[in-house]
C-alpha cells in the first residue's frame, strides 16, 4: 500500500476518535456536575450581565458566593447597563446589573417578549467622582461649570476660564467621557448635563478604569468615573457643589449616604418577575452584610451605614 495512503487512513481514524471523544466529553459533563462537591444538590448557573461599573462588585459576589454554595455558578459579564438590560428584555439572562433606571420602553419590551414584569433591587450606591490630573491645582467645581464643560453649547473650554493655571501649559480642557452604552454616560447626561447632549470631541473610553488612567497621564484632562476607581496619588477627585456659592462636597461613602454629594446613583439589579429558588437566595445574600461588605470593599457605598468594616 502507498505509505501516505496508510497515513491518511490513520489520520481520518484519529479525527473520528477525536470527535467521538468530544461527543463523550459533551455528554458526560452533566454527570460530573452532579457528583461534584455539591452535597447532592444539582448544579445551577446564574447568568449575570450589565453595568461596567458594577462588574467588579458582581465578580467578587460570584467568587465569594461560590465558596459558600459550590453548586451555584454565577457567570458575570459586562458591556454596559444598556447591554445587560437589552439581554434581559430578550430573556437570555437571569440578572441584569444596571447603574441607571430601566426605561419604560425597556420594561414594556421585556413584558412583551417574556410575559414577565422586570423587578428592581437596589443593591448599593455609587458616587460619580470628577477626576483631574494630580498636578491640577483646582480643588472644587460646581454643577453649572460641569455642564458648561461637558454639554453641547457649554461655554467653558479652557482651564483659565475656571480661574485655574494648569502646569505644562495645557490650558485646553481635555474632556474624558464614556461610550454611549454605558450607564455612567447616561447617568452623567441626565443628572449633570440635564439631558443635554455631550459636546463633540471628548475622548470616549470603554471602561471606568480607562477614564481614570487617561486622566492620570494627561495633565489637562477632566473625566467622570465611579468613586471606586480612584487611584490616590495619580488622580485627584474634585469636591462638587450643587450650585455656585453653595459649599462643595467631597465624594465619599458618608456624603453619598447622607445624600449631600450631588452626583450619586443607586446600583440596581433587575430580574424577570419575582426571583425564585437559587436566584432568590443569591439576591438575598447580596443584601446581607456579607454581600454589602463586598460593595464597600470595591469602593462603592453599601445600603446601610455602619455595615461592619471588613
Amino acid at each position, binding site marked *: 500500500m502507498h505509505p501516505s495512503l496508510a497515513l491518511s487512513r490513520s489520520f481520518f481514524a484519529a479525527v473520528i476518535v477525536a470527535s467521538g471523544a468530544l461527543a463523550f466529553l459533551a455528554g458526560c459533563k452533566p454527570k460530573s456536575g452532579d457528583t461534584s462537591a455539591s452535597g447532592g444538590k444539582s448544579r445551577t448557573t446564574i447568568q449575570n450581565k450589565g453595568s461596567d461599573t458594577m462588574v467588579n462588585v458582581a465578580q467578587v459576589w460570584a*467568587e465569594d458566593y461560590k465558596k459558600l454554595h459550590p453548586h451555584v455558578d454565577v457567570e458575570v459579564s459586562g458591556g454596559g447597563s444598556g447591554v445587560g438590560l437589552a439581554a434581559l428584555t430578550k430573556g437570555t439572562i437571569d440578572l441584569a446589573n444596571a447603574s441607571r433606571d430601566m426605561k419604560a420602553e425597556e420594561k414594556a419590551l421585556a413584558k412583551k417578549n417574556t410575559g414577565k414584569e422586570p423587578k428592581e433591587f437596589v443593591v448599593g450606591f455609587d458616587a460619580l467622582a470628577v477626576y483631574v490630573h494630580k498636578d491640577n491645582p483646582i480643588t472644587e467645581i460646581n454643577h453649572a461649570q460641569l455642564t458648561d464643560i461637558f454639554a453641547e453649547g457649554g461655554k467653558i473650554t479652557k482651564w483659565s476660564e475656571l480661574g485655574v493655571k494648569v502646569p505644562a501649559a495645557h490650558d485646553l480642557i481635555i474632556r474624558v467621557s464614556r461610550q454611549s452604552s454605558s450607564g455612567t454616560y447616561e447617568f452623567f447626561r441626565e443628572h449633570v448635563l440635564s439631558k443635554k447632549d455631550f459636546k463633540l470631541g471628548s475622548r470616549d473610553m470603554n471602561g471606568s478604569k480607562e477614564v481614570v488612567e487617561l486622566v492620570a497621564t494627561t495633565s489637562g484632562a477632566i473625566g467622570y468615573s465611579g468613586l471606586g476607581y480612584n487611584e490616590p496619588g495619580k488622580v485627584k477627585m474634585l469636591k462638587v457643589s450643587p450650585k455656585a456659592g453653595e459649599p462643595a462636597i467631597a465624594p465619599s461613602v458618608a456624603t453619598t449616604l447622607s445624600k449631600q454629594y450631588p452626583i450619586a446613583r443607586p446600583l440596581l439589579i433587575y430580574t424577570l418577575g419575582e426571583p425564585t429558588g437559587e436566584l432568590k437566595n443569591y439576591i438575598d445574600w447580596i443584601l446581607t452584610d456579607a454581600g454589602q461588605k463586598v460593595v464597600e470593599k470595591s469602593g462603592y457605598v453599601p445600603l446601610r451605614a455602619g455595615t461592619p468594616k471588613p
Partner: protein
Amino acid sequence: MNALPASSRFTETPAVRRKLRQEALAKWIFCAMAAAMVVPLLLIVGYLVVRAAPSLNLEFLLEVPKRGMTEGGIWPALIGTLYLVFISLAVSAPIGILAAVYLNEYARDNWFNRVINLAVINLAGVPSIVHALFGLGAFVYAARFGYSIISASLTLAIMTLPVIIASTREALASVPRSFREACWNVGATRWQTIKAIVLPNSISGILTGVILQVSRAAGETAPVMFTGVVFFKSVERGDLLPYYLNEQCMALSMHLYTISTQVPGVQPSIPFATAVVLLALVVIVNATAISLRVYLRSRKKW
C-alpha cells in the same frame, strides 16, 4: 582550471566600481528592511516576558483568579479558550475540507459554483465584529442556544470556515493534474481518485491550514465576547471539565482585555503573563503545524 585571483580576471573601470557600490548599497537597504521586521517582534516578546516574569510559573496556569481578579492565575480562561478552539475547529474543519474538495475536484465552472466561490471569498473578508453580531443574532437569539460555549464556538467556526476552505483548495490544487489523470485512466471514479491520490498527497497542506486557524480562533475577542464568553466565572482550581456546553466560559483574549481595562489594582505582572500565555499557545500551535508539514513533506513522492 586556471586559478587567477578574481580581481585580475576583469578590468575594473569606474563604471564597474559604481555598479558594485550600488549593488552593495541595495543589498544593505533590503537587508535592513528585512531585519526591521524582526525588531518589533523581539521588542514585543522581550518586553512581555520581562514584565510578566514575576507571575510566570505553573501555579499561574493552574490557579483561578482571586480577590476580584487582582491576584491568582488564569486556569478558567485557559481551559475556556481550549474549549472554544477545539469545538469550533471540530465543526469548521470537516465542513471546510469537504466543501473545498467539492469546489476543487467536482465543481464545473458554472454560475452556481461561481456564486459559492464569491460567497467564500466575501465571507473571508467579513470583519470579526460583524461575525460577532451575526453569531449573536443567529445562535444566541434565533437558534435559542443562549449565551453559551456552543454559540461562541459556532460563531468562531463560521469565521474560520472560509480560510480553511481557501487553504484546503490551495493544498488540493498543488497536487499535479497528471496524478489524477493517471488514476482516471485506469478506470477510477472521482471519489476513488480523491481517496487514493488527492487527499494523501495534500494532507500536509490541509492540516497546516486547519491548525493555523487555531491561533485565529484563540486570539479573537469580539466574536466570543458577544456570544458566550464572560468577564468572570468561578471554577475549581485545575478542573479539566469545568464548563457545560450550554454555559458560558472565560477566555484568554477576553480575560486580557478585562483585566487591563476594567479591573482596578491588578498585580502589574498578571496582564503581561496572560499575554505571554496566549502568545505561547499560538507559537506552540504554529510550531506543531510547521513540524507536521515538514514531516509529511519528507514523505512526498515527487
